[in-house]
């Protein structure tokens, strides 16, 4: 009896995956075909070069904001920490959202797979040198975040019932009107469309995809749509069913997972302290010379900038949506607080991942020439285990602590989940901006959002990651135009605030 059941079960299991893999492949094919044009548009190169214009767009913007606001990320760093500590919070406002909560809520939307999988992708293609460009992009991106979040708070809509709606759509419409500029509405609509696409892409499919990759890396291969359906149901319960308990548990566990992740990375780095010098020299040398990676030095730069932008979302406009819901009398304070996000996300957490991958020698280089060895297709550096993406990060961490892969599965799934919840909110705000608020309209968005979870987990990595990037970068195209046009307003806010801070008009509470 017992053997018969086992045999039958085995037969069913053998038949199941074959049919299911078919579904996965079909989804993958349809997906790649239907999004290809959008991806190539966003990632087309400057004529005659291999440099995608969108990467230049983001870096130039971050540099312009850094110079225009006089290195605000350096000047206001200490004050930002004081704000988060609550030094400047009026005790009578207790019970309102604190700066700390605003920061962590926005971070939970960005700290996620970009920090674990995205970094591995960048290093797998661009080599250790990509890390240097990633850190630089993170530091410059702090100024972009400052600009967009200050505007987000300044031009939000406040409703009679005490709720607020804000974000780039609102500063585009209201800020442009205030300055007498045309085209605010058009930009706002474009932004909202891209934001909805971004919430399906990077904020959703990429997360589901990498969560599945990590689970199947540990428990063995199985069809992606199974992960997709399970995650979709949980996301559905939270965002449609209002099952706040799940969200609340995630929100509490995620910071601990982040701490465990960074802590373990630090331990691995300290254990291999003799490698730290080599790792940094690889990072610096790789950043400025051709060490055999795909596309040479420019390849490293592109990968670094691209993954940094995807991870910390500076200039994308998503954080402006999250921060604008915070009650504060001073828009500049949210700007200051938000500039910590690219720092924590990219300069700290992403660098940890990169160092662990480099220090544990996951990338194969030719001992004779010292150059990295590419795979047969020439698209990636060969790795010890042949893995890429989140699996590469997992290999790196597990090479020091075998059990860490299990922790990483939990971390990846939780990060993926909290990022999805955050992005479902951003997407919903864009959706209601376009179609108006209303229960049915909101439900339609939420159901579509859940469907994309399934697609994301089923589709292969390349089409998903490309579409994720394309959608999120398209948001940045529109958002940064608005930031350029509105940056004098931010400067006025910033100068007025800093002057009052200096004169003692804005004071610490004790």
């Amino acid at each position: 009896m017992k053997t018969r059941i086992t045999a039958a079960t085995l037969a069913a299991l053998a038949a199941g995956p074959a049919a299911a893999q078919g579904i996965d492949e079909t989804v993958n094919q349809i997906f790649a075909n239907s999004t290809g044009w959008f991806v190539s548009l966003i990632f087309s190169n400057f004529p005659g070069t291999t440099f995608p214009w969108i990467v230049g767009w983001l870096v130039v913007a971050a540099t312009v904001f850094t110079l225009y606001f006089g290195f605000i990320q350096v000047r206001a760093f200490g004050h930002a920490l004081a704000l988060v500590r609550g030094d400047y919070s009026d005790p009578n406002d207790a019970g309102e959202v604190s700066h700390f909560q605003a920061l962590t809520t926005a971070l939970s939307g960005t700290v996620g797979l970009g920090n674990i999988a995205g970094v591995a992708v960048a290093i797998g293609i661009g080599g250790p040198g990509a890390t240097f460009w990633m850190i630089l992009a993170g530091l410059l991106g702090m100024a972009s975040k400052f600009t967009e979040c200050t505007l987000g708070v300044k031009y939000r809509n406040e409703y009679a019932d005490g709720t607020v709606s804000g974000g780039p759509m609102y500063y585009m419409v209201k800020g442009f009107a205030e300055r007498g500029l045309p085209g605010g509405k058009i930009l706002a609509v474009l932004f909202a469309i891209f934001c909805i696409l971004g919430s399906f892409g990077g904020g959703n499919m990429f997360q589901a995809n990498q969560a599945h990759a990590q689970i199947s890396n540990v428990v063995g291969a199985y069809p992606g749509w199974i992960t997709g359906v399970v995650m979709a149901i949980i996301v559905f319960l939270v965002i449609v069913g209002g099952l706040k308990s799940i969200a609340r548990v995630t929100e509490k566990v995620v910071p601990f997972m982040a701490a465990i992740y960074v802590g373990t990375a630090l331990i691995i780095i300290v254990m291999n302290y003799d490698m730290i010098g080599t790792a940094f020299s690889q990072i610096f040398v790789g950043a400025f010379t051709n060490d055999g990676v795909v596309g040479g030095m420019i390849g490293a730069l592109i990968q670094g900038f691209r993954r940094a932008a995807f991870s910390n979302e500076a200039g994308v406009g998503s954080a402006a949506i999250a921060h604008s819901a915070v009650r504060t009398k001073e828009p500049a304070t949210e700007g200051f607080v938000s500039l910590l996000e690219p720092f924590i996300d990219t300069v700290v957490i992403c660098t940890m991942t990169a160092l662990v991958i480099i220090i544990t020698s996951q990338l194969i280089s030719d001992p004779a020439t010292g150059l990295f060895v590419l795979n047969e297709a020439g698209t990636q550096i060969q790795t010890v285990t042949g893995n890429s993406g989140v699996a590469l990060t997992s290999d790196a961490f597990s090479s020091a602590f075998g059990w860490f892969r299990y922790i990483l599965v939990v971390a990846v799934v939780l990060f993926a989940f909290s990022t999805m919840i955050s992005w479902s909110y951003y997407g919903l705000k864009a959706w209601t901006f376009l179609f108006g608020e209303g229960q049915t309209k909101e439900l339609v968005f939420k159901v579509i959002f859940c469907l994309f979870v399934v697609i994301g987990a089923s589709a292969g990595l390349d089409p998903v990651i490309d579409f994720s990037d394309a959608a999120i970068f398209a948001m940045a195209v529109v958002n940064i135009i608005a930031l350029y046009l509105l940056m004098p307003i931010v400067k006025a806010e910033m100068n007025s605030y800093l002057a009052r801070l200096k004169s003692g008009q804005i004071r610490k509470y004790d």
Partner: protein
Amino acid sequence: MSRKIVVGFDGSDASVRALDFAITRAQAQGDNILIAHVLEWSPYSFLTAAEVEERHRRRKEELQRAEVAILTPMVKRVEDAGIPCATTLRYGHIAETLCRIAKDEGAAMIFIGRMGDSGFASRIFGSVAATLAQVAPVPVVIVP
């Protein structure tokens, strides 16, 4: 001279007992009473984006509910006993906030009720009564 007594009040049976005991003491000594209702709140908890958006509205609702359901009837109870009464409504860590109120108001004493939990949870997390007994700036009366 009339002193001010702070009564930590959360609507529980224990806090009603504390208030009633405070009323008898105030009657005997000619004191007045400040009913302090503290809503547990930490600025370091984690919220989802949707919760952030609703927070201001929720706060208004919570304050209003506390005012109507808890403070107003208790003020009547104290004033009916012929004692001058004021209220304060705050957010924060309960024991810390009660201490702050006592200090700010120049109170002579704090009265609180005790839940009487001897269980596992209060051993680990501590109770408001135990914390207050340790850190309060003025004498604390813990009413069982």
